[in-house]
């Protein structure tokens, strides 16, 4: 008698669980049909703001392809990829990819995102503070002085051909172009000043080697 109850209950329970799973399948199928695109977009958006520091793949070395003068494997934002030397004013500093205040803090030079890299044949824009550790002595620079940039993929030598004081709202004085390789380095002006400076001292140099 008890076995009979048990058998019937078990059979009905299994059947009900199968029905429940089937219903779940129907709901999932309906959601998939109605919102599959939105779900995929959501996941891709989240993966864009995900940084897995533990399982990070090592970045490959930067290379300059000679056919089209393009860099392969650009450096990660906020990392050092070069050093800059200006012998005339004893500058020998690391160059970081990025231009936020956090990146250029202390004795660092930043590379403006959006400008070209050394060797690519276009405008390269670097910036640094006007502190004594960085570009305080920019006023001593003269036309013809040399600037050396050393990267993992090559060394580049530039010669200064102009210096200008520009306002911070004159981006046209730092034009982005790809006709000629020009290195433009700017710092805040006046060099010794207290407060927020609205002018920039720009040094223009062209590639010689």
């Amino acid at each position, binding site marked *: 008698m008890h076995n009979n109850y048990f058998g019937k209950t078990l059979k009905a329970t299994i059947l*009900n669980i199968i*029905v429940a*799973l089937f219903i*779940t399948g129907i*709901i999932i199928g309906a959601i998939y049909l109605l919102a599959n695109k939105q779900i995929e977009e959501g996941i891709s958006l989240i993966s864009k703001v*995900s*940084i897995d520091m533990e399982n990070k793949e090592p970045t490959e070395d930067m290379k300059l392809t000679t056919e089209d003068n393009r860099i392969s494997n650009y450096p990660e934002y906020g990392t050092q990829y070069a050093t800059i030397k200006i012998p005339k004013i004893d500058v020998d500093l690391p160059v970081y990819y990025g231009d936020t205040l956090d990146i250029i*803090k202390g004795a660092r030079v930043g590379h403006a995102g959006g400008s070209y890299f050394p060797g690519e044949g276009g405008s390269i824009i670097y910036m640094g503070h006007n502190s004594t550790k960085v570009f305080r002595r920019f006023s001593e620079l003269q036309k013809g002085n040399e600037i050396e940039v050393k990267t993992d993929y090559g060394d580049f030598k530039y010669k200064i051909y102009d210096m200008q004081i520009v306002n911070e709202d004159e981006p046209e004085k730092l034009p982005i172009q790809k006709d000629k390789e020009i290195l433009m380095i700017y710092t805040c002006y006046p060099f010794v000043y*207290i*407060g927020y400076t609205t002018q920039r001292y720009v040094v223009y140099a062209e590639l010689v080697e």
Partner: protein
Amino acid sequence: MKGLALIVRYILIILLAIIILAFAIVNISSSTILSKDYALSKLEETEYYSGIYQEIEKNFKNYIDQSGLEEEVMNNVITEDKVKNDVNIMISNIYDGKNEEIDVAEIKTNLNNNIDEYISKQQGVKADKDAIEKYIDKICEQYKSTMTHTDYEQQINNAYMKIMKYINLGNKGILIAMLVLIIVIFALCHNRLFKGISSVGISILSSGVFLTIANIFVNTNVKINTITILNGPITKSLRLILNDIMSVIAKYGYWMLAIGIVLIILGNLMDSIKYKEEE
């Protein structure tokens, strides 16, 4: 006729499963991300206030190199209490619809005093009043943007108020719909009351399986612990809240699985006993 009743009963079981899911989602969201108390408790848990205070100090120091000043001018410009108070203002703006501005007068005064003191010690340095004011304004702007990270508090609050209105209305509607569906399912089972119990169990089990699968799906496809947004304290709080919501979803899922199976077994067992006795 019997076959038609059976089909209708299964359709109602599917509808009940969807309604139970909606009930779970509404409850999970209103007890987590849509609750001001919950948000405040999570900020406390992640030590958000001291984290954002350190972040602001770090950002202030980034402005030192370009100003011709020394780091000492940033000493005692802000306090952790001020930061905590301003974070709470922002939270109230979002959750309570207040339109309170973050007051930077204290920062301006402290910074002005520190800069004046610094300048009085220096000799032969150009100090333009306008440039200093502009610099202080930049620092205050930086403070405000690190505190709020959004200019859309009012819009977020409007959206929040709308959601809460719909949730309150929806909750009542969901409960009524749930009750009606259960009554109709029981009515369709005629005299077999216990079949009605197992039918409700099927709906609850389906919802439980769905929530469990959804939890597994999210955990497989989204690496919550690698999400990085704006700065350390915000990232830490966001990760904690998302992980917490996922664990609440998992808990709801497991409870529904257990309740569903118990109701199915109980309903079937009682039904077979009663049916046999009647025979």
